[in-house]
C-alpha cells in the first residue's frame, strides 16, 4: 500500500508539472493583460514601468522559470488586479466552494442511491418510471437555465428561498460554513440543488443499473435461501456490490463539481472560487488563472488517489492485486 501511494504521488507531481507548462503557455496566448490593466491615458513610460514591474518584459521561458522557482516555494504569483498573492485569494474563496460542492454531493448520494435502488428493484412500477424520466431531465437540462428557473420559481414567485449570496456563517469545530446557520442553509439550498441535479441523475442511473445486475446474481438468491431478511439482503449484500462503481463516479465527479461550479456560482452570486476564476479570465489576471488551474489539478489528482484507496477497501479483489 505504501509503495502504491508513493508511486502515485510521484506520478501526481509529474502531472502537475506538465499541467503548469500547458497552462502557462496557454494564458500567454490569449491576449495581453497590460491592455486590460493600464489606464488608457497613461504614457509610454508608465506602461513600460508596469510591464517591467509585472515581469512581462522577460522572455516567456524565463517567466516560466521564475514561476516554477516561486511555485516550489509555495508562491504562485501576485494577482495583477488585487495585488495580493493569488494563492491567498483562492484559498479565501475555497471554503465557500467546498461547502457548496459537498452539500451538492450529499444531496446526490442521499437521494440518488435509494431512488436508484428502488427503481432497480421495481423496474416496472410507475414510481420507478417517474424517477427514471426525472433523471433524464436532470441530465439534459443545462445548469445555468435550471438555476435561473429555480430562482424564478422559489425566490421570485414563491419568495421561499433567497437567490444570491452565502448568508450567515458560523464556526463549528473550527470549520466556518453557512450550513451551520438556518439563514446559511436557506442560501445554500438552491445553488446546491442546482449543482447536484446532474450528479443526482448519474447516481440514480448507476444505482439502478447496478441493482438490476446484482439482484439476479446467485449470491443474492443464496442470501435469501439463508433466510436473511429482505432488508439485510438489500442493505448489505446488494448495496456493498453496487457501491463500487458509484464511489468511482462520486470521487471523480467531486472534482468536476468543484471545477465546474463556476456556472452555478455565477448564477447564484455564490462567493466561491468559480466566481473568482470567471472574473480573473475577464481581466486576464494570469497568476490567478494559473494558480486556480494548478489547484484544480491537485484536487483531481488527490481525489483519484482517494478513490483508488476506497476502491480497495470496498472490493477485496482489488486489494490483492495492489499488494502483489
Amino acid at each position: 500500500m505504501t509503495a502504491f501511494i508513493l508511486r502515485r504521488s510521484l506520478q501526481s507531481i509529474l502531472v502537475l508539472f506538465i499541467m503548469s507548462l500547458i497552462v502557462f503557455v496557454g494564458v500567454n496566448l490569449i491576449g495581453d493583460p497590460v491592455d486590460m490593466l493600464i489606464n488608457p491615458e497613461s504614457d509610454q513610460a508608465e506602461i513600460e514601468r508596469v510591464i517591467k514591474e509585472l515581469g512581462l518584459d522577460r522572455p516567456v521561458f524565463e517567466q516560466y522559470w521564475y514561476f516554477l522557482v516561486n511555485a516550489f516555494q509555495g508562491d504562485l504569483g501576485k494577482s495583477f488586479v488585487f495585488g495580493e498573492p493569488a494563492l491567498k485569494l483562492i484559498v479565501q474563496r475555497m471554503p465557500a466552494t467546498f461547502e457548496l460542492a459537498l452539500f451538492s454531493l450529499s444531496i446526490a448520494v442521499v437521494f440518488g442511491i435509494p431512488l436508484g435502488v428502488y427503481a432497480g428493484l421495481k423496474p416496472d412500477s410507475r414510481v420507478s418510471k417517474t424517477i427514471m424520466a426525472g433523471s433524464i431531465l436532470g441530465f439534459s437540462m443545462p445548469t445555468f437555465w435550471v438555476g435561473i428557473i429555480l430562482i424564478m420559481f422559489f425566490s421570485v414567485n414563491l419568495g421561499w428561498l433567497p437567490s444570491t449570496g452565502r448568508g450567515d456563517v458560523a464556526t463549528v469545530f473550527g470549520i466556518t460554513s453557512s450550513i451551520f446557520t438556518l439563514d446559511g442553509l436557506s442560501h445554500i439550498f438552491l445553488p446546491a440543488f442546482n449543482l447536484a441535479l446532474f450528479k443526482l441523475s448519474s447516481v440514480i442511473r448507476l444505482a439502478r443499473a447496478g441493482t438490476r445486475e446484482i439482484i439476479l446474481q446467485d449470491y443474492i438468491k443464496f442470501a435469501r435461501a439463508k433466510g436473511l431478511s429482505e432488508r439485510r439482503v438489500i442493505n448489505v449484500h446488494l448495496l456493498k456490490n453496487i457501491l463500487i462503481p458509484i464511489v468511482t463516479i462520486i470521487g471523480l465527479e467531486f472534482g468536476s463539481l468543484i471545477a465546474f461550479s463556476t456556472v452555478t456560482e455565477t448564477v447564484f452570486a455564490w462567493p466561491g472560487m468559480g466566481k473568482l476564476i470567471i472574473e480573473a479570465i475577464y481581466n486576464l489576471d494570469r497568476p490567478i488563472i494559473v494558480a486556480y488551474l494548478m489547484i484544480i489539478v491537485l484536487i483531481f489528482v488527490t481525489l483519484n488517489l482517494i478513490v483508488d484507496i476506497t476502491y480497495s477497501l470496498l472490493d477485496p479483489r482489488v486489494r490483492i492485486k495492489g499488494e502483489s
Partner: protein
Amino acid sequence: MAPILDVRNLQTHFFTKSGVLKAVDGVSFQIGAGEIVGLVGESGSGKSITGFSILGLVDAPGRIVGGEILFKGNDLTKLPATDIQKMRGSRIAMIFQDPMMTLNPVLRIETQMTEAIQTHDSSVSKDEARRRSRDALGMVGISSPDERMRAYPHQFSGGMRQRVSIAIAMLNRPDLIIADEPTTALDVTIQGQVIHEMQQLCRKTKTALLWITHDLAVVAGISSRICVMYAGRIVEQGPNDVLIGSPMHPYTNGLLGSVPSQNLRGQPLQQIEGIVPSLLNLPPGCAFENRCGRALAQCKQSAPEETVMDDQRILRCFNKVEQS
C-alpha cells in the same frame, strides 16, 4: 413414519408475455427424515424450479399455482412470507450449482456464515456464532478454519467454495437440504469428495437431502429413491435399485442407456433423439411422445396418469418397457 417433506401435485407456472410456461406441472414426491432422494432430469425439465418452489424462492413472473408442499405437516404454500423466511436456512437449506457465484464476493466468509446463524437466533452472541461457523468449516474438511474465516471467496478454489456453501447450509442443522446440482461445476475428483462428504454429513446429522441433478450416475450411487423428471412432470419414481435395475419408462430407460459402462464396452452409446418440447406449448398427450420409440396412438391424445406399481414404483406411461 410420516415423511418430512410431502409434495403433492405441485404446479409452478411462469406467466410470461408469450404465454403460460408450465415449469412444474403436477409433481408429487416424498422424502423421509434423513433420506436422500435424487431428482433427475435434463436442463429445463423443472427440477430446479421444484427446489426453489419448496423454499418459496420462485422469481417473478413465476408463481406456485397449485398443490401442496407439506413440510413436517405444514403446508408451505399457505404460510405467510415471513414464516417461510424463518424456515429458510434454518429448517430447509439449499446449496446451489455454481460455487463461484453463490458467495458474495465483497463479504468475508465469516460475515456470510455468522449472519446465517444470527438471523435465525438473535440470542447467539457474535463469538458463539463465530465459533459455530469455524466448527462447521472444519466439519466440511477445510483446513485451518480460523484463518479461512477471515478470507474472501476469491481466495478459495471452486471445490473449497462449495464446501463453504455446504458448511453454511449445515450451520443451523436443517431437517432438509436441497442440493441443486452441487457437484456439476466441480472437477471430477473434487466431485467424488464432495458427494462422499455430503453423504457422510447427512447420515451423521440425520438430515434429509433432495439431490437435484442431470447426472443419473451421481444419484444412483447415493440416494435411496430416485425421481426422474421430464418436461415439468415426474415420469417415473421409485426405490433406487428398482429404478436403476429395471427402468419401465422409456425415458428412464434411455437415460440409463446413455450412461457409458463397462458391460457395453465397444458398442455405440444409445442416445435419446430430439429435444425437450417447449414448455410454453406442450402437446395434449405425453410430453415424451415425439422422442419415444414405444409411442402408441393413445400417447398423442392423452397424458398418462401416475400409476403405483407393485414394486413401489410410480409410473406415467401407457406402454412401459418390459425388462427381459
